[in-house]
Structures are given as structure tokens and as C-alpha cells.
């Protein structure tokens, strides 16, 4: 603490240079924050996936259905604890831009398999008692100002006609990464009204008794339907979500590449600032050594200064990114989990500190090795 005034004075002796360096770090960390948030948005399904859940879908394609009769046959397989199913609806609410996912779900079992989606009991009862009832996530409900009891029309694109639903429940997620943008309605309503595709479902969600045996159970399910007209592919929910992500391209590689370029640039900028700062202060560093500061103390002073600059920039950048993710943005309509998590924020700050440390290391070593006699001769 007693060295703090010295460090602070040195930090701000060249205000413009320090400010520009801090800003460059802030911009880089802001970018990191956005990339991390987008990564979280893309990965939210993966992060939220349950270790004890398997997704069983048609082997040909995700858009191909599976017979509803598979339900009982899957339940008979050893290791299966529970099961539910769902189908993609793909309707349009008022305008094609108003996109949100709509699933037809089995009213009795779906939320049992997804306990992280929380619906108040009275609302759940209302949903169970209304064939045209729907449960909508908090995010979508707030986006369109849906209220309980409201009747809303959705134009079918796969299943023709205008479908009307009564909002009977609004669910929340237990965790920040839980998607609260889904619109779920009863599968029996879909089966009743659709003119084709009766007796099939989109996919099954299988809950296994022991997550350690998930691979074995998946294999058993697929073996049961091998060589049938509807062969299946069963995989852990996490793997399914990752596969789904990969269809959109390697987002993580893209983010990592951008991040590395930014990091490298940042190292050069901060390293250059510290190198200039040390070179300008050669005489002063020699004086510090003359009055008794050890080589290590001088090394530490330069490193602390470098890390401090990086951390200030990091705070500004991470703070700006956090504020942006809290703002009402239209991108949230497509990325419901637009969330800059505290873990990622801490990661950003650690990244900034690491950049400061690495960038300051070489100038600090030069300062440490400075010979007093040579340095004083240059003054």
C-alpha cells in the first residue's frame, strides 16, 4: 500500500498515453464480452442440457418424425426412467419477423422431464384443463406482452391454418442459461387439428436412470428400431445440442480466432506502452535502485503498473459489455439467453491481468537488469 502513490503517479504521468492504452484494452475487452455473450447464447442449449436426458430422433433427418408407438417400446428398455416427446410447429405470430420457437408437447410428461422450467401449479392445472392452452416462456411473454388468459392466433406454416391458443401459463428458468423463449402447447391439440402426420412425433426425450449408462441405453434404443421404417439416432442431449450448433458453423472457432487476434494486438499495444514508459524512466529507476530498491522491487513496480493499466481497461470494457447485454436489444429476440455471465466477466478480468502481466514482463526484466552506473550516466 505504501508504494501506491508511486504507482499511481507513474500510471498517470502521461495521461493521454495511459488513457489511449486503457481505451484500447477496454475496446478489446468489450469485444471479448460481446463474443462471450454470443457464445453463451449459442451454447445455452448445450449448457442447459441435462446429463440424464437423451434425444431420440429419426435417423434420416431431424425433420423426419418417429411413430408415437415408440413411446411404450422405449419405456420397456432397461435403464429408461421416463420419457416425453415433442414436435416442431413452426408457426408465425402476426409477422414472420416475430420469430419464437413453438413446440407441441406431451402435456403430462414434458415438464416432468424438464424440471428446470418452472410453472406455478395453478397455471399448470389451467393448462392441463384447456386443450387449446399454451405455456410461454417469460422472455417471449414480455416481448409480446402476453398475459394469462389471452387468446392468440398463430399462422401455421407446416400445419396449415390459423391456430388459436389460450395463454394458461408463463414459465421461468431456474438458471440464467435456461431458455425462456419457448412457446409450448398440447400435442393432443396438434393431433386433433392437423390433417396429416397423425400418429407421429418430432422427437423423444428419454430420461435415463443412471447418466453413466446413457451411452448403453442410447445404443439399446437404436438397436430396438434398427432395420425398421423409422430407424432412430439416440444421443445425449448435450451432444444433440452441439450437433445442432455445428449446423450453424463453428461458432467457437470463429470466436476463438477473433479473440486471439485481439489478444495479440493488445499485447503489442500494452507492451509498447510499458517499454516506452520504462525507457523514459531509466534515470528514475536507477535512482530507486540507488536508494535501496532491489532489482525485484523494481521488477514488481513495473509489472504492477502494467497489470493495473490492463485491469482498469478490463473493468471499463467488461463493464460496458455487461451494460450492453442488460439493454433492450432486438438481438435478444433471436438469442433469448443473451447473458454475460459472472464467470465470463471474471474470465475477462483475468485475461486483462494476464495481458498486462505478459506485456509488462519484458520491460520489467529490462528495468530489473538495469545497471545503476550505466543508467545514471545517461541522465
Amino acid at each position, binding site marked *: 500500500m*505504501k*508504494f501506491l*502513490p*508511486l504507482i499511481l*503517479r*507513474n500510471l498517470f*504521468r502521461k495521461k493521454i498515453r495511459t488513457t489511449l492504452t486503457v481505451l484500447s484494452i477496454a475496446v478489446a475487452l468489450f469485444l471479448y464480452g460481446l463474443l462471450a455473450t454470443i457464445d453463451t447464447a449459442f451454447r445455452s442449449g448445450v449448457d442447459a442440457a441435462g446429463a440424464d436426458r437423451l434425444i431420440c430422433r429419426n435417423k434420416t433427418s431431424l425433420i423426419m418424425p418417429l411413430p408415437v408407438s415408440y413411446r411404450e417400446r422405449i419405456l420397456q428398455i432397461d435403464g429408461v426412467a421416463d420419457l416425453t416427446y415433442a414436435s416442431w410447429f413452426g408457426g408465425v405470430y402476426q409477422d414472420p419477423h416475430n420469430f419464437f420457437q413453438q413446440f407441441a408437447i406431451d402435456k403430462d410428461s414434458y415438464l416432468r422431464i424438464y424440471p428446470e422450467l418452472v410453472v406455478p401449479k395453478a397455471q399448470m392445472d389451467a393448462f392441463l384443463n384447456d386443450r387449446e392452452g399454451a405455456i410461454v416462456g417469460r422472455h417471449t411473454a414480455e416481448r409480446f406482452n402476453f398475459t394469462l388468459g389471452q387468446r392468440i392466433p398463430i399462422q401455421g406454416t407446416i400445419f396449415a391454418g390459423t391456430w388459436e391458443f389460450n395463454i394458461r401459463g408463463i414459465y421461468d428458468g431456474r438458471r440464467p442459461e435456461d431458455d425462456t423463449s419457448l412457446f409450448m402447447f398440447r400435442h393432443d391439440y396438434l393431433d386433433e387439428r392437423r390433417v396429416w402426420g397423425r400418429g407421429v412425433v418430432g422427437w423423444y426425450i428419454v430420461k435415463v436412470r443412471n447418466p453413466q449408462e446413457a451411452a448403453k441405453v442410447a445404443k439399446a434404443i437404436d438397436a430396438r428400431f434398427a432395420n425398421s421404417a423409422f430407424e432412430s439416432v439416440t444421443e445425449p442431449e448435450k451432444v444433440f445440442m452441439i450437433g445442432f450448433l455445428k449446423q450453424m458453423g463453428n461458432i467457437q472457432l470463429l470466436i476463438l480466432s477473433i479473440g486471439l487476434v485481439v489478444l495479440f494486438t493488445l499485447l503489442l499495444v500494452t507492451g509498447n506502452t510499458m517499454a516506452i514508459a520504462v525507457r523514459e524512466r531509466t*534515470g*528514475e529507476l*536507477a*535512482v*530507486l*535502485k*540507488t*536508494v*535501496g*530498491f*532491489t*532489482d*525485484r*522491487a523494481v521488477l514488481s513496480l513495473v509489472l504492477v503498473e502494467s497489470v493495473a493499466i490492463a485491469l482498469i481497461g478490463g473493468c471499463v470494457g467488461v463493464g460496458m459489455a455487461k451494460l450492453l447485454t442488460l439493454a433492450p436489444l432486438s438481438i435478444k429476440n433471436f438469442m433469448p439467453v443473451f447473458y454475460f455471465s459472472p464467470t465470463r466477466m471474471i474470465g475477462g478480468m483475468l485475461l486483462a491481468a494476464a495481458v498486462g502481466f505478459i506485456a509488462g514482463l519484458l520491460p520489467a526484466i529490462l528495468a530489473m537488469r538495469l545497471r*545503476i*552506473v550505466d543508467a*545514471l550516466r545517461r*541522465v
Partner: protein
Amino acid sequence: MVKVDGTNNKDALIRVRDLDKKYHRGSEVIDVLQGLNLDVSVGDFVAFMGPSGSGKTTLLNLLGGLDVPSDGTITVAGEQINRMSGRVLSAWRARHVGFVFQMYNLIPVLTAFQNVELPLLLTKLSKSDRRRHVETALSIVGLSDRMQHYPRQLSGGQEQRVAIARAIVADPTFLLCDEPTGDLDRKSADEIMDLLVRLIGEHRKTILMVTHDPRAAERAQSVLHLEKGALVEAHR
């Protein structure tokens, strides 16, 4: 009592024996100091004179532990400093030596108070004790009213007085002054010399000073000339 003949002076604070310092410039070897002997007692005020390049500053650097000799020994208050490691030498400098430079070498972004406080940051003194020491040092050099001024707000003479306050604040065993009046006008130079003399008389400091200025050298108790790498006493 200053001696340069190498005979033992049991009261010597600083004892230098057969000191050699060589520099290498490419393949050329330059002998700056050769077999130099020196004994300095507590309370002595010694001035080193000699032409440029004679090794005055080199000798001062060696005595202050800023440089290492090629050969010979330097003993200060019983401790042989030429055998110390860099880290031990740093601690030794902090405890025993106060440096005053020709160009003052103050840190421009620190106030006079903070500059003087620098050596005390390495001690275990509390903040209030450090403040007390700094105020005392600044009052000795007559700058109690300039504590919060930055170096750029001070005259050359005042800057040098701050540098002297920094040199004495940790109560070192001796002071090394390298051309302390070299960058000052006559009046300021005289004031600095008055101050150094007062430090000897009132605070019993030991001072070794390099100077080109005969008038400054006159104020010292002993004047030694560096000739061909060795010290000789000047006739006064």
C-alpha cells in the same frame, strides 16, 4: 582523519585497500583506479578532485556499492561490501549511504515530501513515523514550506536541498555527493555547501564529495586528488 597511504587507522569508518577498477572498451583495457588506498573516519568531509576521466565518479560509485571493483577491498563500518550480493548490497545502501547527484535526480511526478519519503518506503516505519522523519529532513534543509511542491515548482538550489533531504532522511552512515554544486549558480552553490558543512557540524555526518569547483572543495576538511588512478593529498 583521512589517510591515503594504506597504513592502518583503527578508527576508520571507510577503509579501502588496493582498489583496482578496470574498464574494457572492445579489446582495450582501461585502468581507472590502481592500488588505491583510503581511510575515512566518522565526521570527515572529504573532497575528491581531478580532471575529467580521472575516476572520481567511479570511486564514488564503488564506495556507494553502485559498482564492483576489479580488485581490492572496501570495508565500511566493518562490513566488506565488495563481497556482497546485489540484493544484500541494495539493503546495505538503503541503510548506510545517502546519495546526492549533480542533476538532483528527483522523481518529477512526486512532491518534495514524496521524493524524500522514497528511501523510507523500504523500512518498516509506520506512516506517521515516516511523516515525522520526512518533516525533520526537510526542516534541516530549510524546505518545510515546500513539502507539497513538485520539482518543477522549485529552483535548482531548492531541488538540490530536497535531494539532500532525501539523502539524509534514513540517517545513513555517510553521504556521497557527486558534483552537488555543479549545476547551480554561485549563491545557490554556497548555500548547498553551507548545508553540507552544517550536516557535518550539527549532525556528525561523514561526507565524501566529488567536485570540480575549488571553492566548494575549500569547504571540505580534506581535499584529495586523483592522479594516475591513485589518491594524493592536496597541499592547502
